[in-house]
């Protein structure tokens, strides 16, 4: 295992080229975290069960723990580090921060990448569509509700509405 010959390739990650040498059996998750030091992408199982490792490849959310890095060469890879524009957070990130949709924050990068992909193809997702889109992302802290609300709020704001979180979701009924 340890003397496998490495391959050299250039990845396009968050719009920037990264040239790395890596063993060809390495997953995209491993190469992102270990070779490019992009540790924002997390792992909860490395078996395709939790969604913590979700990144976007050509706009589609995928589980980076199940994808070989070599398959991502020549594609457009996007990770949580690539969401914010400079130091300005996206509406989705703002809504997650405001509603407390990130508690421990460990599932958050994966959830954000899945939700961001949903919002890029569906401007007004219903609660059910959000649930479906996030069904593969486990979160042990939030009970998902603040995540759903944050996605809905961000969608409204991205449509240009002056939406605020409901009183019930912040203070209870």
């Amino acid at each position, binding site marked *: 295992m340890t003397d496998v010959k490495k391959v050299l390739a250039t990845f396009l990650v968050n719009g920037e080229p990264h040239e790395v040498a890596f063993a060809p059996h390495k997953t995209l998750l491993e190469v992102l975290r270990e070779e490019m030091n992009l540790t924002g992408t997390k792992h909860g199982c490395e*078996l395709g*069960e939790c969604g913590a490792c979700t990144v976007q490849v050509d706009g589609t959310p995928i589980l980076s723990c199940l994808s070989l890095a070599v398959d991502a060469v020549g594609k457009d890879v996007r990770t949580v580090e690539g969401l914010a524009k400079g130091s300005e957070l996206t509406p989705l990130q703002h809504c997650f921060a405001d509603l407390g949709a*990130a508690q421990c*924050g460990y599932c958050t990068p994966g959830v954000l990448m899945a939700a961001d992909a949903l919002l890029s193809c569906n401007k007004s997702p219903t609660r059910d569509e959000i649930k479906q889109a996030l069904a593969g992302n486990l*979160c042990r802290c939030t009970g998902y509700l603040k995540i759903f609300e944050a996605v809905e709020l961000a969608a409204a704001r991205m449509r240009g509405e002056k939406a605020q979180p409901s009183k019930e979701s912040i203070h209870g009924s």
Partner: protein
Amino acid sequence: MVLDDPSARSPQAKSDAPWHHDAKKEDLKHIGKPIRKVDARSKVSGLTKFADDLSMPRMLHMKLLRSTRAHAEIVSIDTAKAAALPGVKGVLTGKDMPIPFGILPVSQDEHALCQDLVRFVGDPVVAIAATEEEAAWDACRLVDVQYRERRTIGGVHEAADHPEPRLHDYGVRGNIHRLENLEFGDLAAGFQKAEHVREDTFFFEGNTHLPMEQHATLAHFDKDGKLTVWSSTQTPHYLHRALARVLAPLPAHHIRVVAIQNGGGFGGKSDPFNHEICAAKMSMLTGRPVKIALTREEVFWCHRGRHPVLMRSKVGVTKTGRITALDFHSYLDGGAYGSYGTASTFYTGALQTVTYAVENYHFRGARFFTNKAPCGPKRGHGTPQPRFALEVQLDKIACDLGLDPARIRLDNLAPRDSLTANFLRIGSMGLGTCIEKVVAGSRWKERRGKKERTADGRIRGLGLACSSYLSGAGLPIYWNGLPHSGVQLKLDRSGLVTAFCGSTDIGQGSDSVLGWIIGEVLGIDPLGIKVVTSDTDLTPVDLGSYSSRVTVMTGNAAMQAAERARDILAKGVAEKLGVPANRLVFADEKVFDAEDPKKGMTFQEAVVCTEAKFGTIGTVGSYTPPATAAKFRGGGVGPSPSYSYSAAVVEVEVDPETGVYRVPHVWMAHDIGRALNAAVAMGQIEGSVYMGLGEAMMEEMAYRDRSHKGHRVFVHKIPSLLEYKSPSALEMPTVTTYVVEDPDKNGPFGAKEVGQGPLLPMMPAVANAIFDAVGVRVDEIPCSFEKVFAALQAKDKRYGPSLGADGVPTVDFGDSLKIKTPWQGGDGTAWNEPKREKKAAK
């Protein structure tokens, strides 16, 4: 905002200090508002560092070879081939770390690597570090361990029936780890008074925390002889102590533990772990940084989750449903080690009395050692199991007597500001309000028992249950007379306030609690405060993030430090402005005269003028909980500065043919004293509903009993995230949450616990709702579809452990400790207890 006269304040940390529970909502600028958490931006940007995100130059990767046997003597370990593998830099076995450790002083029964015995599949035997992760795995496969198998002990009945072979050479006897037997009041008289008596058995299967982050640790023993350990731990102080113990003679003050942000804990990162100690030792051995990140499967082996508990409960009530006597037995399957098990055992008998006034109470608890991953504290620690039993049993009693299950609870409420039969001191008590809220919200009175059909032919049912939980344990884990939490503040002439505290943010927002409270007292923006936490080199001790202690204990320490800072600043400003100090108001980043608001200065100017006058500004605050009223042996588990209360109504829709059900709606009311932050408190409540729902419906830490060359081996049935069923986004119901605020005088601004309590009523409420829908009783958790189906098929319409002689193990509990209740004139001691030696408080 000047809340009280600072000159009246005691200079010492006093548990009876005024914590401003009576502050008016409208006077509070930050408390209760939905302000962002101090670390919210990093969390949504992927910038928060977790332990496995750290790496260092020359870092080695470590792996543990774990036992494949459930119970065996280690005959020999041959690591020669492994050590010779290219890339391998260090190999450790048990003999390198012979000193035992454990979270509780009474059960120092673990070793960093097994000595001569393995006690469960997954017990670590060898540690190997290599330059590459894969080399470390490969090397593990080259180790040859020879075992001599021993008989395995698979559960509580087996442990009771087979004292030999013993898993440990300590404990009560045989494989009984703990036996508790406490009698409060006169049980016989209580049952005599009863007009209706019920006896039931219940079983609560074990389940696990399943934090999304697998435990990870990075250790670095530097060239100056100092050790630093960064770890995903909820309890850096206790880890620090365990490291100092095992790594002796390395002095404790040469060890630094940094509890890095936890990716979820729920109690699963509260023990000092083998892998943490091995990483430290390995770094000392190799002189290089060493990291270990557990695999998901290994997280299941670490466990320390919910104990499987078998329970027998006998309750006597009057015909109006008033509880006159409770006789409760619990049998805990502890797994292979002690962990928090002593406390867990007591907790199965502690909090029943805090919700309902129980006049006479007898509790017997037994914990057994078995050859499975050790059990310990999971959210609710030891109290969800008995809570399930009590709340289902009350439902049955209400049914027997033809009473409304909500009414029977309201009629039994423990009074506020009272002592319970087992000498727990109740302060504020909002359970009645909680019940009323969920009853009204769910339209309980109109909808219960109606057996409405859904469009797809399912039958609707509603179930109600209540609970209570601690706001931190009243006593520390090891005996000492020191504060439970300490906070230091540094005020900089730039206007920056930095708070140093040993508390650990596991996602619940404890870092932010510091910011909110200090910001409120000093009248500055909480997000402008710098928070430095959970670093044993830099921060004063806080015992950790367990037993829901942070809000009250860290919060009160922070308040004291902040008020002392305000007092100093007030002195400096008063002199400068020529205004009496007690007329100064701290608000909106300013300090000004209450009578002439134009007369004042910015907060930063206040710091500068005070520093010019008195020199560098720093203050400290600390908190020690009130002395407990329970003085009998075992009375240390249960007392708390305050108790939170919850009530839930759960709606189910059950298929009467198959037992398959769904939960569309939950109404949850939680009395948290006061919400320090509305949005964050909501998140804690919703997260509890979610986790409780998982336990109610599907989660179980179940074992397969496999044979291996004629020996039984207990292998976890499902050590993966996919097979260990937990609710996904699709199963999460609509939740209507009621935040009930009944401020408690022991909490900062009246705040109590949030985040564990609302998990507890979920399991019994689901079981009660299923009964309401289809008339069957599942007296077992998880209340899976299969069990509902089995109950639908059963003659007695019930699923659960039998009430007969084979129902619970045969155990001689010995004589009970007899304690007179407060209403019998008891003083909190046991009248038949042999004199205890007084332990010296250090």
